[in-house]
């Protein structure tokens, strides 16, 4: 299968600190890659460089074969790259449905056609299906800010899928979510993956979540890749145990 995401020798420094130091990896179509590592290992910086939030000092990012290094996040999204953030990033004053429509509307026609077109940009049905898929139907018209933390996490994830993305990068989707909601979130991600053969990259500290969801795991420490492989191999890898897992 072809690589949806290719990262080559990526470097990003803040002053004298090399947060990402020559990282290279690729993600194949339909794969779920987990990225783990201790705090400060450069996971989020890596994500931000891939997603255009930060400009890398060196290296290259290719998405679906196209060089995207330094592209703006909105242009990357239009190429089919979607993401969630470590901290909750929904629009609290908008309803659940409007959050989802917003997440997909920029892919519908031109800016001018959206002004004169339908209020829901023709995404009302798709938003309702997504709401149903993530089992949020009872909250459709609720303000996103009034939802519980776990429900907002689900909504955040659902928003990342609204535009039918080629690649989804999930930054700590399980952070702060209770075990019941976590199982629900994992099930939904697995169901979406099974249904659409979507490609995910997931940063996560919750090891059970990573092991159950990911098909391959990359381990970062001090800005470098220290191991890569199948989840059960990573779990037994002595370098990873010493640097991150600890036991």
């Amino acid at each position: 299968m072809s690589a949806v995401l290719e990262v080559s020798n990526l470097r990003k420094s803040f002053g004298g600190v090399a947060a990402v130091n020559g990282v290279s990896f690729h993600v194949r179509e339909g794969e779920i890659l987990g990225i783990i590592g201790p705090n400060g290992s450069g996971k989020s910086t890596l994500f931000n460089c891939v997603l255009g939030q930060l400009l890398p000092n060196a290296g290259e990012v290719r998405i679906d074969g196209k060089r995207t290094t330094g592209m703006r996040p909105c242009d990357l999204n239009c190429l089919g790259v979607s993401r969630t953030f470590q901290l909750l990033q929904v629009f609290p004053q908008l309803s659940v449905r409007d959050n989802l429509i917003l997440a997909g509307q920029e892919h519908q026609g031109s800016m001018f056609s959206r002004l004169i077109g339908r209020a829901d940009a023709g995404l009302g049905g798709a938003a309702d299906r997504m709401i149903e898929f993530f089992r949020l139907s009872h909250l459709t018209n609720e303000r996103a800010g009034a939802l519980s933390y776990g429900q907002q996490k689900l909504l955040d994830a659902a928003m990342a899928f609204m535009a039918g993305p080629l690649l989804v990068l999930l930054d700590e989707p399980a952070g702060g979510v209770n075990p019941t909601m976590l199982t629900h979130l994992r099930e939904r991600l697995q169901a979406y993956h099974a249904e659409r053969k979507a490609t995910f990259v997931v940063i996560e500290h919750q090891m059970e979540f990573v092991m159950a969801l990911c098909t391959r795991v990359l381990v970062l420490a001090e800005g470098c890749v220290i191991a890569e492989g199948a989840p059960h191999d990573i779990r037994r890898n002595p370098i990873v145990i010493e640097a991150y897992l600890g036991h």
Partner: protein
Amino acid sequence: MSRLGATAVMAAAIFAVAAPFFLKPFGIFLISMWAVLTIAAIGLNLTLGYAGQVSLAQGAFVGIGAYTMALLMQAGYPFGLAFIAAGILCFAIGWILGYPALRVQHHYLAFVTLAFTTLVFLVLRNEEWLTNGIYGINGIARPAFLGWSTGRPLNFYFFSLATLAVLSAATWWMLRSPWGRAFVALRENPIRALSLGLDTRRYTLMAFAIGSSLGGLSGALYAPLVQFIDPGSFALGMSFNLLLMVIVGGSGYFFGPFVGALVAVLLPEWMRITQGYYLIVYAALVMVMMVFCPSGILGLIERILKMAFRNGKTATALHAEGLGPEIVP
């Protein structure tokens, strides 16, 4: 819009049409001023209330619109052309003024726009060859359409009211469209909006440009309403007054500017019964209002309605009735 909201709007519209028949000429002048300044406040509400871009330049755009109208009419151009020119010119200048907003936010942006207002004031005052300086421009004619003159106060009021209705409807349409959702996203979380494909740069510039354009159109009506304009009318005081209208009415509420302009235009006049103290009383009332309802009068009404309806109803039910935050109408 909920049934309750639609009824309230209908009642307000009937009141707006009937009111001038019970008023003296000065009263009609005041409600005409309300209609004209509401247009500028709608523009500022779009820029500030919806898109979250702080602007202290709206008064300057009213000035640019007013001078464009006065100068073009003096040069013999028809009202319609001058009106459109005022809107287009302010759209273009507003677009350019939006560029600093791409780099600075909040109080820093407020200072950028404040500096722009001062700049416009200085140009209007010092460039006498164009604006007649401190002497201003006198005798600005009111337009006539197919033999119907707006020279009489009542006629000009209805003309202003009709213009307000058309521009409000256009703004309502825009805020109901995906643009309205994008403006709210810009205000609430620009980083997330960017990651969802929203070209925040273009939407920010558009919010500034459209808001400024509405300021210019308001100015284009302001000039024939007062029939005399001078630079002092469009100094910082005007921008602060428009900001007051948006905040007092309810920033981010579609009808906030209508209510806010009513307070800012009419309340000082009603307070004249206190004679020399009227501005002191007015200022004190505004301060009390801001302490007890920081989300503006419409925010306060919403809170009261929510409390009244809370018995046995969920937030979802309240929202379905239009009592949730009306950010996107």
